[in-house]
C-alpha cells in the first residue's frame, strides 16, 4: 500500500434523536401514544390536579400537629393531636396504661421475629417453634402470670387485640387446616364426608354469622356451669373459620404433588403415615406458601369484624375514639390513621408473599 491510501474511518455515532430515546420518547410511548391515550392521560391529570392538592392541604398544610380540639377547629385541616391523644387507647384498648410496657415488649418480640423470618435468618423447626411460642409468651405477658399483676381479658383491646386474634388464629388454624385437608384427601369415607361437611359449611356462610354463633349460641351449647369468656369464644370462631379456608388452600397444594412421590415412598417401604407426614405435607406447604400468606392477610382484615360482637379491637377503638365528645367531628382523621396502619401491615405481608413466590418451588422450575 502506498501512503496515499485513505483508510475509511467511520464517523463517530451520533446520539439517537430525542424523539426516540429519553424522556420525550417515553412520554410519547406511554402517555401520549395515540389520541385515545392522550385523552385518558389528560383526564387523569385533571382529576389528580383537582384532588391531590386539596388532600395534601388537608393532611399537612392546614393540619394541626400540636394543640387541642379548639386549635384544630380553628385551623380547619386535619387534627393530628387527636390521634396522639388517643394513641395509647388505640394501641392497647382500655389496658391499664401503667402496665403498657408489657404489650410493648410483646410488640418488639413480634417485630424481631417477623424481621428474622423475612430475611430468612431463622428457618425450619426453630422458626416454627419460635412462632408457636410467641402467642403463649404474649398471653403470659399481657394477661399477667408468674407474679406479674393480672389483667382481665375484658380490658384487652386496640391493635394489640387485632394482632393477637390474627396471630393465634393463623398459628392454630394452619395445622388444623392441614389435618382437614388430609382428611378430605386421604381419609376413609366417613372422615372424608365429615371434613367436607365442615369445610363447606364454614366457607359457605359469612364470618359475621359464625361470630354471632360463637357469641350467642356457644353459651347455649356448654353445660350451664361452664362459662367461657367472650374473647376465647371469638378466638375459637376465628380459628375454625380460618381453618376451613386454609384446608382449601392446602388441598390445592396436595393436588400439585405428582403421584410419583407417594408411589416411590411406598415402593421404598415407607409407611403411609410417614409418607404423608414427611413427604407429602412439606412439599404441599412449600407450594402453597404464597396463598397461605394471602389467607393470613385476609384473616387479619377479618379481625375488624369483631366490633360487631362487642370486642373493641383496633377498628372498634377507632370508631369509639371518633365518637368521643371532646373530639367531635374528627372522624376522618381517625379513619385515615386506621387505613394507614392496616394498609402498612397488609401490604408488608403481601410483599412477603411475593418474596416467597419468588423464592418458591414454582419459580425455581426452568
Amino acid at each position, binding site marked *: 500500500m502506498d501512503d496515499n491510501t485513505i483508510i475509511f474511518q467511520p464517523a463517530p455515532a451520533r446520539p439517537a434523536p430525542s424523539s426516540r430515546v429519553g424522556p420525550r420518547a417515553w412520554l410519547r410511548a406511554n402517555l401520549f401514544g395515540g389520541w385515545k391515550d392522550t385523552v385518558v392521560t389528560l383526564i387523569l391529570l385533571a382529576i389528580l390536579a383537582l384532588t391531590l392538592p386539596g388532600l395534601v392541604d388537608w393532611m399537612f398544610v392546614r393540619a394541626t400537629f400540636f394543640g387541642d380540639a379548639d386549635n384544630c377547629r380553628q385551623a380547619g385541616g386535619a387534627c393530628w393531636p387527636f390521634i396522639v391523644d388517643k394513641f395509647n*387507647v388505640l394501641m392497647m384498648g*382500655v389496658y391499664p396504661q401503667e402496665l403498657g410496657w408489657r404489650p410493648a415488649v410483646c410488640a418488639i418480640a413480634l417485630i424481631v421475629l417477623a424481621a428474622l423470618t423475612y430475611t430468612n435468618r431463622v428457618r425450619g423447626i426453630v422458626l416454627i417453634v419460635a412462632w408457636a411460642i410467641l402467642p403463649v409468651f404474649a398471653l403470659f405477658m399481657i394477661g399477667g402470670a408468674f407474679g406479674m399483676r393480672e389483667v382481665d*381479658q375484658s380490658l384487652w383491646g386496640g391493635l394489640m387485640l387485632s394482632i393477637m386474634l390474627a396471630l393465634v388464629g393463623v398459628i392454630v388454624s394452619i395445622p388444623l387446616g392441614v389435618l382437614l385437608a388430609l382428611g378430605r384427601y386421604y381419609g376413609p369415607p366417613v372422615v372424608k364426608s365429615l371434613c367436607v361437611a365442615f369445610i363447606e359449611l364454614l366457607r359457605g356462610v359469612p364470618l359475621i354469622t359464625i361470630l354471632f354463633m360463637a357469641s350467642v349460641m356457644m353459651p347455649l351449647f356448654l353445660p*350451664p356451669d361452664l362459662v367461657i*369468656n367472650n374473647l376465647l369464644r371469638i378466638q375459637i370462631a376465628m380459628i375454625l373459620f380460618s381453618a376451613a379456608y386454609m384446608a382449601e388452600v392446602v388441598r390445592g397444594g396436595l393436588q400439585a404433588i405428582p403421584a410419583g412421590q407417594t408411589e416411590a415412598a411406598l415402593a421404598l417401604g415407607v409407611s403411609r403415615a410417614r409418607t404423608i407426614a414427611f413427604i407429602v405435607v412439606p412439599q404441599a406447604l412449600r407450594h402453597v406458601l404464597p396463598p397461605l400468606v394471602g389467607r393470613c392477610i385476609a384473616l387479619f382484615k377479618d379481625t375488624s369484624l369483631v366490633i360487631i360482637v*362487642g370486642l373493641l379491637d383496633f377498628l372498634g377503638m377507632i370508631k369509639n375514639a371518633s*365518637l368521643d*365528645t371532646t373530639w367531635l367531628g374528627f372522624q376522618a382523621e381517625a379513619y385515615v390513621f386506621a387505613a394507614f396502619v392496616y394498609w402498612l401491615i397488609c401490604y408488608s405481608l403481601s410483599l412477603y408473599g411475593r418474596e416467597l413466590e419468588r423464592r418458591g418451588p414454582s419459580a425455581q422450575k426452568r
Partner: protein
Amino acid sequence: MHKIMKLGTIAATAMVAAGAVSAGTLEKVREAGELACGVSEGVPGFSNPNSDGVWVGLDADFCRAVAAAVLGDANAVRYVPLASKQKVLAVSSGQVDMTSRTTTWTMKRDSAEGVDFTAVVYYDGQGFMVSAEAGINSAKEMDGATVCVTTGTTTELNLADFGRANNLSLEPVVFEGKREAVDAYASGRCDALTTDMSQLAAFRTSFADPSAHKILPEVISKEPLAPLVAHGDNQWKDIVTWVVYGIITAEELGVTQANVADMAANSADPSVQRMLGSSGDTGGFIGLSSTWMLDAISAVGNYGEIYERNLTETLGLERGLNAQWKDGGILYAMPIR
C-alpha cells in the same frame, strides 16, 4: 383534656366462673369477692366513666350499694359495659350478676327471656328531641320525619307504635349503639332523636350548643327502669330488690350518708332501727349481715342524695315522678320489716 381510661363498648366478658346460674349467685359473689355489674356503654348521669376512669351515675351507685350490702365493700364492683342488645343475655347467661343499665321493665322481658326485674329505680318515659330550627312544638307534627333510634330497645318498638297510633309516617334510622344514634342526630342525619327523657336531657348537655335542640313535651311511653337479675335465683332477686327499697326508704326516714352511723347508734325510730340493724336482723331474712343497709347507705347515701349527685347537679333533671310518694311523686318503697 381528660384521658378516658375505660371507654367500654365491650359486651359481656366474664372470667371463667364456677357456680351455676340458677342458684347460688350470692355464694358466687362472695367467693369471687366482687360483684360483676353490667352497665351501659356510657350514658351521662346513669353510668359513665369519669376522667379518672371511675364509673359514676345512678346505675353505678346502685351497683355499689348492692356490693356494700353483700360484701361490705362498695369498691368490690367489676363494671362490665354492655351494648343494648346484650344486656338481657348477659345476665341470663350468668356472665354478670346483675345489670343496672337503664333497662325498661316489660312483661316480655320479665317472663320470657330468662331474667327477673327487681325494683324500679327510676320512672322514665320516652320522648323526642329535635333541632330548634325545625320549628315544631309537638311530636304530632313530625309526619315524614326521620328518627334516629337504637336497636334492641323498647324505644324502637314504641316509636313504631306511636307512629301507627297517630297516623304519622316516621322513618326510623336504626343504630347499634346509643352514641352512634346521638352522633348521627347531631350531624344531621335524622330530624329527631328518640330515647328516654332523662337520656335526652343528658345528651343535650353534651352538644356544642344545647339551646339549638328542643325536647318535645310528649312522653310516649312508660319506661320504668329497674335492675335485672337472672331468673330462678329468688334469694338473689330479693337481695337486690330490698337494697333498692332500703335506699328509697332511707330518704323517706331521713337517713343520709352523713348521719347513718349516728342514726344506727342513737335513733329511737323503730323503722330506722330495723333497717339499720340496731334491732332485729332484717339482713338475715335474705342471707346478709345485719348491717346490710348501714353499709349500703354509708357507701352511697339515700336515694335523694344519689339523685341529686348524679342527675340534678350534672343534668339539671328535677325529681318529677321520682319524688317520694309523700312529696307528690310515685316512689313508694315496701316496708322493711
